[in-house]
């Protein structure tokens, strides 16, 4: 594998490989000095066209624990408007000598374009509404950590699937590992076509919750009510929010997950986010180890010492 652009690049075997490697990096992260020399001399640059402190920090921390050098190229909207093209920016960065480029962009497909222009490994850290493969990997890892496997697990992804890169990558990853996925959302927040998606769809969260092993809540953005996708956030919370009452419908073992940042009180009640089965901060912790595994897979040459 040269790049990580989509979960589809990995397939079930590739995902399993990342998860197995992650086990060893979780162990590294728990050491007193959580650092290994594996990627010494390699340079990883974050090229973020969108603000995303948490994903950027997670990648940066993963690279540093592997002893790679890190650079940060934050492109604010204003400097894009100064006129440098995407291609020129990317070629400029590559000219500085980098081994991996971690790309976040508001437009779907940009990591694919970047991968065509450079020799460095490209990691998709989120492209528009399209994919966010490392988020899906850390979600798989977190579920596997609790249940041992995703096979035959029942997972509902609830909320704004239409605009969610997390949902697209999660559907691909969860189903590749044998889970059953149900999308729960009002029709306006589902993709216009689900042709070829191996999922079920429901508009009734209450009927879905009791059967679940995992309820995965997506962030609801306030703009959605001004785009006539929703009458109001209040109505969304009433029908699709994981309120305290609704959380009681969940089985005892069922996990509550969220990619962050949460809108407490909108898609998830504050008390629910703090329940023992809410593994939201565990997701964040696992994110670093998963990203270490991805960087290792892409950058460690044959024969490099394992962890």
């Amino acid at each position, binding site marked *: 594998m040269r790049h990580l652009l989509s979960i589809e690049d990995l397939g079930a075997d590739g995902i399993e490989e990342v998860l197995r490697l992650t086990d060893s990096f979780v162990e590294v992260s728990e050491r007193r000095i959580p650092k290994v020399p594996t990627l010494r001399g390699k340079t990883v640059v974050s090229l973020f066209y969108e603000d995303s402190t948490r994903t950027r920090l997670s990648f940066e921390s993963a690279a540093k624990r592997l002893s790679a050098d890190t650079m940060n190229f934050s492109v604010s909207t204003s400097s894009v408007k100064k006129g440098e093209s*995407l291609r020129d920016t990317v070629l400029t960065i590559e000219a500085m000598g980098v081994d991996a480029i971690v790309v976040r962009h508001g*437009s779907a497909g940009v990591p694919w374009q970047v991968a065509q222009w450079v020799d460095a490994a490209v990691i998709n850290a989120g492209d528009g509404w399209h994919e966010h493969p490392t988020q899906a990997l850390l979600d798989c890892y977190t579920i596997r950590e609790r249940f041992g496997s995703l096979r035959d697990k029942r997972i509902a992804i609830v909320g704004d699937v239409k605009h969610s890169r997390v949902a697209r990558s999660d559907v691909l990853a969860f189903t590749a590992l044998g889970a059953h996925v149900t999308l729960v959302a009002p029709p306006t927040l589902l993709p216009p076509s689900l042709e070829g998606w191996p999922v079920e769809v429901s508009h009734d969260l209450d009927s879905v919750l009791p059967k679940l092993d995992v309820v995965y809540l997506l962030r609801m953005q306030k703009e959605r009510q001004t785009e006539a996708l929703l009458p109001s956030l209040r109505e969304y919370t009433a029908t699709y929010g994981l309120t305290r009452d609704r959380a009681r419908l969940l089985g005892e073992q069922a996990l509550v997950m969220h990619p962050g940042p949460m809108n407490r009180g909108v898609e998830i009640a504050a008390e629910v986010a703090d329940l023992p089965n809410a593994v939201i901060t565990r997701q964040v912790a696992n994110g670093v180890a998963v990203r270490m595994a991805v960087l290792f897979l892409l950058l460690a040459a044959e024969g490099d010492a394992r962890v």
Partner: protein
Amino acid sequence: MRVSEVVLKGGEVVDEAGRRRADVVIDADGRIAAIGDDLSAARTVDCGGCVISPGLVDLHTHLREPGREEAETIETGSRAAALGGYTAVVAMPNTEPAIDSPGVVREVLELGAKATCEVFPAAAITVGRLGEQLVPMAELAALGVRIFTDDGSGVQDSRLMRRALEYASALGITLAQHCEDAGLSQGGHMHEGAWSSRLGIPGIPAEAEELMVARDIALGRLTGAPVHFLHLSTAGSVELVRQAKAKGLRVTAEAAPHHFTLTHAEVASYDPVFKVNPPLRGDHDVAAVKAGLADGTIDAIATDHAPHPQEAKEAAFDEAPCGMLGLETALSLAISELGLPIERVLALLSWQPARIAGLENHGGPVVEGRPANLTVIDPTTTWTVDPSRLASRSRNTPYAGRSMTGRVRHTFLRGEPVVLDGEAQR
């Protein structure tokens, strides 16, 4: 370069009257002087194995001049047109400034007079294509403008479109609509469907086009004015036009080669060369456009040749402009992909569009006394598209590396050989 007298030898003449083996002599005035067997002249141009057709006519060319000369000029665009077999093109008015006043019409006509094909400016329907105030239609019609369109966007206001059609009906001109309901298409960058959902790119539903096709059929009925539909791309649009024609309404329609050769699956590459408006649609739309071309519902193949400089197409998909080149590949795609006899292909590319645009000197029968606007086509040769060898100033063809059948061998504009053996002569 003027030739004293030239004979096109060994070809088969194909025009609206049918097909026949004949040599064609062009005189020093650029007119057809004789048609018959075994003719000779001072100079002979070999047409063995080829079809001699009235010159092709493109109803939909973006020549970009004035204002966007980094993408195309009237000179480079008309050279591409001649190489594609066109002797006449209708230049779309979404230039900068828009073709909406006598001054800009005159500028385009003046530059077009030196070009290697005839350039007929279309004018906007509304000033600045803003959809608010009608252009001086009578004044522009007097300068020779026959097609009016706000192409690039549709006229959204139904009341304004009704008035435009009513006003136009007295002038012998045709209004051409880019059918797109702006509310429904807002924010979209590709066809809405399975691929847009999967790729995470905001979509444009087929209904955004079909709503305006349906509206303008109704407005055409209300006003009695002719309506021409630009670049039909959906099965629903084709069916609406088919029904309107069955009722005897004065509607005509065109389709672009990319809408009968490519689908939205191409966008999976995220290459903005596949971004176009209307967007590439589904398999069933492609089949419907082909069927519409075959059964006469769609009257013309029009290129929607839309050059963009390299840097504009190296942006993210949702930030890149819409449009693809078309002039140098349209004929070959029609021959390769439609499965129609050559005389049907040429009807769609020459005499039917000439009639819609009201062009007297193009597309007419190959007979004595007519201006020698002729295209000589080798219908069986195969070739592969190499973007670097195109005459257009831009390179945004979606067909790079694609092999096609049929190619222009010679093009004559008013008797002048502007293309000989596939090479532009100036």
